[in-house]
């Protein structure tokens, strides 16, 4: 053998060995968790990121991606759009980052989706604001939009709670809640419900004496709250203080699903019914297992946001797996778009994207004796 051919064989051998070694080396699949860890939305961002982290750890432990593992990096958007946008730009420039789970709120996420589409990196925000999808195919929403959930809530109000004349209160400075209220009203009015009063409050407001007085004077048989837990609790208290009769039913939506609703609202929120993604403690074997494992690991009860975070990370992990042995950002995006029936712990247990709209069902919860229980159907 000439020295040239020997060198050629050596080269080929080394290359083959090199490739083989690389193939058996485990790859890190880097996913960035970009949530509001500080600032006004931290009450969502903190538990959500904990749920996501918990999911990543569990998936790695069960070798969900085979030899590969999910590596998470957690970043804080501080509930500020400028920081969220800056973070996305920064991570998009890092080729090892495959996907971004976040940001948290619509205000951060909608312009961030513009950045993500520019930078061609996939982004799945916590929000359900459908407007985000207009920015391009790289931005995803995670929660069910009101077009899906509000007709369900409206039907529950009219058929199960049997109310006929409602007053509504919504956050006027939060797109998500404005939409929820609007669609609820549209749907129920079409079915013959009377809406006797519609009030808007700001997220930072706490003085509801004027609204409470006006609503009590309008004599509704139900009050529907399109706000978050603490505000709803406060509204309930001030409504009762203004003389709202105990017979008036209180109804809400998934934003109320937090322990603060009860700790702040106390007796005033007894009997309040709302549609929820997460049933505290779990309502299926899978969700109950999650609740127990989460409590064991973190010492805290899983709340709505932790459960959603856990579910969203699961969905992304499935997309990474479906993207094949060499998941690029494009392949993950395409796989995510085709998500169908991924097992999750929220809603009715199966998560799908239908025309990029999330679908996973919801349950109805009620506050009874200071706890969340399944509401009468």
């Amino acid at each position: 053998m000439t020295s040239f051919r020997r060198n050629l064989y050596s080269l080929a051998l080394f290359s083959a060995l090199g490739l083989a070694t690389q193939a058996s080396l485990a790859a890190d699949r880097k996913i960035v968790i970009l949530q509001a860890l500080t600032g006004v939305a931290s009450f969502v961002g903190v538990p959500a990121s904990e749920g996501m982290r918990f999911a990543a750890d569990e998936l790695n432990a069960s070798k969900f991606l085979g030899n590969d593992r999910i590596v998470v990096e957690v970043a804080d958007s501080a509930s500020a759009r400028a920081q969220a946008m800056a973070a996305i730009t920064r991570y998009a420039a890092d080729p090892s980052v495959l996907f971004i789970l976040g940001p948290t709120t619509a205000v951060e996420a909608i312009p961030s989706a513009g950045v993500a589409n520019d930078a061609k990196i996939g982004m799945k925000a916590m929000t359900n604001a459908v407007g985000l999808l207009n920015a391009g195919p790289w931005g995803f929403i995670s929660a069910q939009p009101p077009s899906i959930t509000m007709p369900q809530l409206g039907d529950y109000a009219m058929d199960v709670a049997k109310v006929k004349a409602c007053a509504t209160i919504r956050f006027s400075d939060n797109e998500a809640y404005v939409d929820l209220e609007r669609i609820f009203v549209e749907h129920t009015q079409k079915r013959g419900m009377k809406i006797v009063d519609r009030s808007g409050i700001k997220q930072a407001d706490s003085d509801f004496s004027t609204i409470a007085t006006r609503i009590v004077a309008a004599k509704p048989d139900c009050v529907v709250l399109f706000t978050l837990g603490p505000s709803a609790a406060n509204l309930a208290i001030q409504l009762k203080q203004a003389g709202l009769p105990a017979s008036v039913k209180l109804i809400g939506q998934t934003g109320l699903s937090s322990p603060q609703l009860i700790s702040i609202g106390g007796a005033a929120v007894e009997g309040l019914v709302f549609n929820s993604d997460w049933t505290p403690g779990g309502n299926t074997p899978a969700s109950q297992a999650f609740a127990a494992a989460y409590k064991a690991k973190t010492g805290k009860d899983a709340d709505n946001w932790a459960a959603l975070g856990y579910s969203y990370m699961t969905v992304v992990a499935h997309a990474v797996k479906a993207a094949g042995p060499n998941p690029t950002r494009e392949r993950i995006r395409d796989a995510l778009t085709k998500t169908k029936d991924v097992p999750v712990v929220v809603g009715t247990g199966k998560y799908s994207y239908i025309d990029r709209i999330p679908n996973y069902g919801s349950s109805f919860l009620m506050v009874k004796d200071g706890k969340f229980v399944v509401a009468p159907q």
Partner: protein
Amino acid sequence: MMELFAPHLPLLDLIFIGTGYALSQAIVFRAGTFSVASSGFAALGAYCAAILTVKQGLHPAAAVAMGTMLGLLAGLLLAMPLARLRGVYQAIASLAFVEVVVALILYLENLTGGPLGFHNIPRVVTPWMLFFAMVITMALLIILGRGGIGRAFDAMRQDPAVAASLGVNPTRYHILSFALSGAIAGLFGSLDALRNFSLTAEQFGFSILIGTLSAVVLGGRRTVFGPLVGVTILVLLPEIFRPLAQYRQAVYGLLLVLVMAFLPFGVFDSIMMSLRNRRLARQGMLPQKAGS
């Protein structure tokens, strides 16, 4: 080279636009008016440009021009009412103006999107455009500052009576300072809108007003570079202190307190002043202390 900057582009955006807003603020201070109306002018310019581009299909350059004009107009309109007040009262009146603008933007939902914000604005503006806008504005202000207008502003700020006796028509220069302030804020508001995909009314409210004010006072309100220095410090702070994220607000607050205690004229201005004093001392040109 651009790849080096790419991850940090949003920071540069913030510095360029923030400096624009701060310059708009600084110029009325220079002319002796305690007005904080800049964020209101910016809001008007931003929404004007955004609405014209998205809803009326106007060419972005024309929309930016319209936004600038609207800011200028608002400045002119606000100048006279504020001229009748002094000091803190001007500040409160201009604050009221900003809050009214924000509240009206929130209320006129059909036009502005209201609390939902105004979204899907095409990203037409590049970082280079922002950079040039900032540089050109600074150059313009430096030129004006060195000339008669600058001297008139300084005179009005230091002693209005003396200024009047020197033949400076305070009304005319006061209106000019507001027109400039409004135009600059309107310009940068429009650029902001066409760069950052969406607008909300809140982003022009109390917190940006405080942020712009802080940047000007922190950096220095007498020079044209002071605002740039102030904005840069405030933009880089969250990035440098990312590990201390929880305490970022406290660090920000501490910075404001310390700078005001030790460099009350602003970081840049104080440094410039002490350099100048040292130079004058070396030349023996500082006034002698009494008794020495």
